[in-house]
């Protein structure tokens, strides 16, 4: 059955400004975009002058948390293999691939090595068949370069993108913070920020040996971003991402031992944060994701070093990212490339932009709606946000997954 969605502000690919247009869907697909809808159209949904954008594809999250995803306008989420048990078997991948359907699509990411231990390759081909869209090292670094090269080669042959975590374990050790005044004052074990660049440099060197597609899930330092920039210039198939935490917070946020700001990788110095903002603007960063990892008091109300890393980020992803647009660092269209189009492309799914043939996943956004982040009133499974009490702007007003309203 056909439906027509109209708005005077539709975010279309390759367009600098939102366009006034109509989207025609048939079933769960977009069949045409444009004013000329042809005869025999069905139901018409008019969003007036509210922004109509592609549904957010979150690359990646650590938990399945539908209320939080729906609050945040996330129609698809890639699930990291760091689960209990680890996503390293086809059956587990298959199970999580169907978990959220039909109103939320989960794209499981297969563990590259068994139990994410970085020693033996996992059954990547079988997991691909079971629905895995990518392979990841988890929140860990594969310290054995020989294994890493084998993993990259194997994934290249299977055309599976590899998502890596970039912290050299020798330097990072048991660090819970980045070297700097805050860590020193608090007496927290810390590692130099160069742990990131070191690990990125190795993976880029290995990439030159083979042809895998490599996605650096979070690049958070000036030196790391410089390496990505150079690798892209060289023509290597690399992409990278970041979360709003590293864009809007520096290591000062862990003062007073705030465990909600304990992240992996840890928050960085202010100069690095500025470098990240620049890298979003100049196109070095391809993806903004939530890293959604809701953690209750049993994981967070502990001494800092004993608490688990991670933050509940799904609800605040859009509102925080919109401040990049308000600060005129990027355009609204570019923002949705970061939130939807690029993650969709990396995962190889037919979603992430409003175009013919794509899945009819879109959201209408009131970019001016003001609200306050409050860790006691979150839709997420836990309220561990480092942005508690922050006033933000931007709310999702309607959400369509496969052409159906949620």
């Amino acid at each position, binding site marked *: 059955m056909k439906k027509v969605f109209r708005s005077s502000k539709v975010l279309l690919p390759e367009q600098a400004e939102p366009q006034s247009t109509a989207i025609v869907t048939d079933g769960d697909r977009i069949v045409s975009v444009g004013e000329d809808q042809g005869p025999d159209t069905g139901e018409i949904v008019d969003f007036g002058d509210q922004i109509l954008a592609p549904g957010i594809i979150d690359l990646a999250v650590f938990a399945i948390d539908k209320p939080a995803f729906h609050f945040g306008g996330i129609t698809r989420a890639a699930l990291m293999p760091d689960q209990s048990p680890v996503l390293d078997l086809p059956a587990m991948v298959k199970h999580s691939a169907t978990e959220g359907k039909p109103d939320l699509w989960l794209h499981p990411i297969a563990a590259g090595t068994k139990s994410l231990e970085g020693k033996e390759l996992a059954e990547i081909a079988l997991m691909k068949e079971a629905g895995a869209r990518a392979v990841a090292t988890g929140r860990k670094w594969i310290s054995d370069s020989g294994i890493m090269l084998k993993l990259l080669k194997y994934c290249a042959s299977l055309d599976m993108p590899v998502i890596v975590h970039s912290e050299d374990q020798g330097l990072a050790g048991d660090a819970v913070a980045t070297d700097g005044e805050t860590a*020193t004052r608090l007496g927290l074990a810390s590692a130099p920020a160069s742990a990131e660049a070191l690990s990125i440099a190795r993976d880029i060197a290995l990439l030159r040996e083979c042809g895998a597609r490599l996605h650096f899930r979070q690049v958070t330092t000036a030196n790391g971003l410089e390496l990505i920039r150079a690798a892209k210039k060289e023509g290597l198939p690399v992409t990278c991402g970041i979360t709003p935490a590293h864009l809007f917070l520096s290591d000062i946020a862990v003062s007073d031992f705030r465990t909600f700001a304990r992240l992996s990788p840890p928050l960085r110095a202010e100069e690095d944060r500025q470098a990240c903002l620049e890298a979003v603007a100049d196109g070095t960063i391809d993806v903004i994701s939530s890293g959604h990892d809701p953690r209750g008091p049993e994981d967070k109300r502990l001494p800092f070093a004993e608490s688990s890393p991670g933050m509940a980020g799904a609800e605040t992803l859009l509102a925080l990212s919109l401040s990049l647009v308000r600060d005129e660092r990027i355009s609204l269209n570019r923002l949705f490339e970061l939130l939807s189009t690029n993650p969709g492309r990396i995962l190889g799914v037919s979603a992430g932009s409003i175009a013919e043939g794509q899945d009819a996943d879109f959201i209408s956004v009131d970019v001016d709606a003001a609200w306050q982040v409050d860790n006691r009133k979150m839709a997420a499974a836990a309220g561990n946000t480092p942005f508690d009490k922050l006033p933000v702007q931007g709310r999702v007003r309607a959400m369509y997954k496969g052409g159906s309203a949620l």
Partner: protein
Amino acid sequence: MTSKQQSSPHQFPDGSDAFPHRHLLGIAGLQPWEILFLLQEAGQWVDLNRKSSKHASRLEGLTVINAFFENSTRTLLSFEIAGKRMGADVVNMHAAHSSVKKGETLIDTAVTLNAMRADAIVIRHASSGAVSLIADKVDCPVLNAGDGSHEHPTQALLDALTIQRRKGDISGLTVTICGDIMHSRVARSNIYCLTTLGARVRVCAPPALLPAALDQMNVETFTDFNAALDGTDVVMMLRLQNERMSGDFIPSPREYHHLYGLTRDRLALAGEDALVMHPGPMNRGVEISSDVADDADRSAITEQVEMGVAVRMACLDVLTRRSRKVEGWS
């Protein structure tokens, strides 16, 4: 605070304004006059402790719990003696014998201690920030007796009292702290305390034991001990933990002693009457040689222990003044 009080740190505001904090979690953030007030209060207890009858009744009827989640002999004993000399009922809780071993969370333990209606809780824990986490959950004053690599405020206070009694005004003195700065809560609390009181602080350690960004904490950093000693008024040696003596931080104890051990020859590089300090327990022949440690004219090491009891008595007294409804402390 009036401007008069701020310009002259030796004058104390009245009543609770002299120390307006509920807990003593660290030295960071304390005003100079707050530190000096505690030191002045400690002075009277030094005198009492030297008498044959060492009993005061200020804390009579109060319960003080020493909750030590990390092993300690000296600090625990010092707090226990301090509490008892003030007349309090002192109870010691060792983590080794407690339900912490059974998997109870720190918060639950804190709530349990709180329910027992202690009037003050003294806490030591191996994790930085653990003591302030507990302090948020209890109704009585909390004294930090050392949390991870973060702070050990009573150690810094007793060190300051020792220096003050030997050298007079701390302001303007040069103090060199040498040893495992990276992992030392004693170093951090002393850096905060001494810089707040106007001393010039130098820190010296092998590069692997120096934390980052020390220059932003108002201290001068050295890796050459001889250079750090030049003209210093106080040399504060830190204990090198056994597990860090061989391998990744330093190659061997004897190489450490060669570069960073305080020997008589080295001490000659410091100021003529430079004071030698050590928080104990010492590794003789590693960070300090015996002839220096035992030189009564130069070494204040046993005096530090003595001042420790007095400082802890003062802290227990001051922090419980509100609950005891001492006049002016509301």
